[in-house]
């Protein structure tokens, strides 16, 4: 009997406690629902509100697109931070909220590219026969690169620090070691004619091969440090001669192709409008020699997945470089704002017993595709 009474008492107490617990839980749920409704309506409507005629959504969108948090639309400057703070302080109270906004846009651009260039006279000096409207080959290539990748540099093959010195225990990159005993057919060996001697500043195949293996040249030692992840594995080459001036062009090209393929590198040969492949008996071009060299330039490019590009104008070369080297990159812009600070990164709410987070999308008026998202944190 005593046990029965005890059981009934325990049941009654638990029943009462359960009711109270349920009431507290329901109150909590209802409170959260009300807060959620409040924020939902708020984030829909507050974006319409204007400052000097400009909706808040547009102010945020402009900042995400163009980074201007103090824009002037012709009616005076509008401070984005003040506008956001005024509104959210009004609705949630000072220090009771944090707004985080981020936008990711995809942009296409040409990153750092690698150009190795024959710095011999015919490439860098004025040539009245050159049809590039008064520009030297070097100037034309330089101008084209400035158009699409302004920070990229042109590396001359005669560079004694990077290409003329033994690095990593290897022969200098611009070596012409085979030239004296294995020159191209028809090339006199050890000629007294300076035009028919090996010339390291025209060692385009060997330099390209070295860069394919060791990556882009650097300003400081060790001068080569592999291929960085953000640089496309492409080497642009330009020369108007046989490799090393006298060859052996085929051997050098064969070697460069093997190295390029082994390292996943493509060669693009920028072929100048005028080729001066030796041997020439007059100042007039040797058409047969030019055809041979052009074919080797083409072979070097195409067998590595690249292309021989004829240098016809700055604009067209720029397009070719862009087509070859452009990449897509996601750019993230973000900011976090609360009642007292504005930072260009993500911050989490601090010093609150509990935080409710409400994600919502934002319209952005950029000319490029951009997805902007926001997260409003309400502290309690």
């Amino acid at each position, binding site marked *: 009997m005593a046990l029965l009474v005890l059981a009934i008492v325990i*049941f009654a107490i638990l*029943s009462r406690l359960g*009711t109270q617990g349920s009431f507290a839980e*329901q109150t909590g749920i209802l409170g959260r629902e009300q807060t959620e409704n409040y924020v939902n*309506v708020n984030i*829909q*409507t507050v974006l319409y509100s204007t400052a000097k005629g400009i909706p808040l959504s547009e102010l945020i969108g402009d900042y995400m697109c163009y980074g201007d948090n103090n824009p002037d639309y012709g009616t005076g400057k509008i401070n984005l931070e003040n506008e956001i703070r005024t509104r959210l302080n009004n*609705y949630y109270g000072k220090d009771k909220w944090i707004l985080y906004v981020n936008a990711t846009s995809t942009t296409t651009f040409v990153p750092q590219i690698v150009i190795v260039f024959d710095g011999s006279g015919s490439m860098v000096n004025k040539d009245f026969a050159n049809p590039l409207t008064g520009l030297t080959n070097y100037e034309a290539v330089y101008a084209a690169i400035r158009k699409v990748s302004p920070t990229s540099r042109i590396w001359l093959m005669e560079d004694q620090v990077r290409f003329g010195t033994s690095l990593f225990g290897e022969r200098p990159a611009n070596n012409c070691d085979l030239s004296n005993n294995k020159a191209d057919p028809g090339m006199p060996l050890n000629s007294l004619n300076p035009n028919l001697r090996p010339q390291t500043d025209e060692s385009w195949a060997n330099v390209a091969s070295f860069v394919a293996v060791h990556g882009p040249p650097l300003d400081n030692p060790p001068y080569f440090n592999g291929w960085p992840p953000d640089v496309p594995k492409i080497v642009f080459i330009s020369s108007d001669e046989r490799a090393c001036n006298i060859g052996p062009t085929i051997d050098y090209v064969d070697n460069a192709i093997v190295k390029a393929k082994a390292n996943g590198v493509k060669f693009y040969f920028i072929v100048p409008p005028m080729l001066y492949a030796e041997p020439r008996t007059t100042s007039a071009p040797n058409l047969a020699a030019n055809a041979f060299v052009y074919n080797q330039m083409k072979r070097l490019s195409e067998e590595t997945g690249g292309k021989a590009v004829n240098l016809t104008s700055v604009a067209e070369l720029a397009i070719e470089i862009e087509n070859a080297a452009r990449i897509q990159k996601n750019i993230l812009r973000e900011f976090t704002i609360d009642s007292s600070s504005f930072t260009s990164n993500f911050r989490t709410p601090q010093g609150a017993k509990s935080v409710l987070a409400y994600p919502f999308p934002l319209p952005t008026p950029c000319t490029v595709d951009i997805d902007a998202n926001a997260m409003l944190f309400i502290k309690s």
Partner: protein
Amino acid sequence: MKKGSLDLTIKAMFALFIILFVLFIGFSVLGTRTDTLGQEAEFAQQRTEQSFFLNLLGSPCLSVVDKANKSVYVETQGFLSQTKLDRGHLGNEDLRCAENYNFLYSVKVLDDVNGKEWLIGIMPNEIFGNSRTLALPSSILYDLRNTTIPTTNIARVFFTRYDGALPRLYGKLKEVCRSRASDSISLNLPLTTVYDNESNVFIYGNTEFYPYFGCAIGAFNLSYGRHLIYFAYSNGKVNVN
């Protein structure tokens, strides 16, 4: 007293105690259950009010209409039209685009930037019954014809709902109109309630407002006190008996 009769008395008292105790526990559990049901009803009522308020903020009475596509127009929830607010201000008229059968309500809109205030729907008055006020944020689009700068200010909307005898009577009338089915309720009216169908005025004690019904309603006059009210629907009209 003999020992046998003493034992019997003790046993009888103990049995009585047990019966009383079980009854007490039984009523306690029953009371708890009643409390729970009451709480559930209260929470459901509050959710209904929230939901209705949200719908009201997206109704054509208050909000800016936007063209969703070639033929569909939609209102943006909480994006209020100053023109519509001006039109409804101090109208003391039950809003026809947001009907409710459970309570009477009035709406106050406050512009947080310039302090302007609008009273929409029936005028707030505690005489209508128990009140509860909810608030939600919003924005007001100003239709300033003589300026080129479009202005939208942040604002807050206060929704006050009243329940009690009058809201029940009024809600039932609206419901019968819509359902087209006669019905009845039992009410204890604290004040005399009159409906003048010629001028469409609802009078409650010394207070009056303009009601909105979905059908014709016959004039009636109910004195204060307890009533069993019959709403007879016939041929598009409700008569109150």
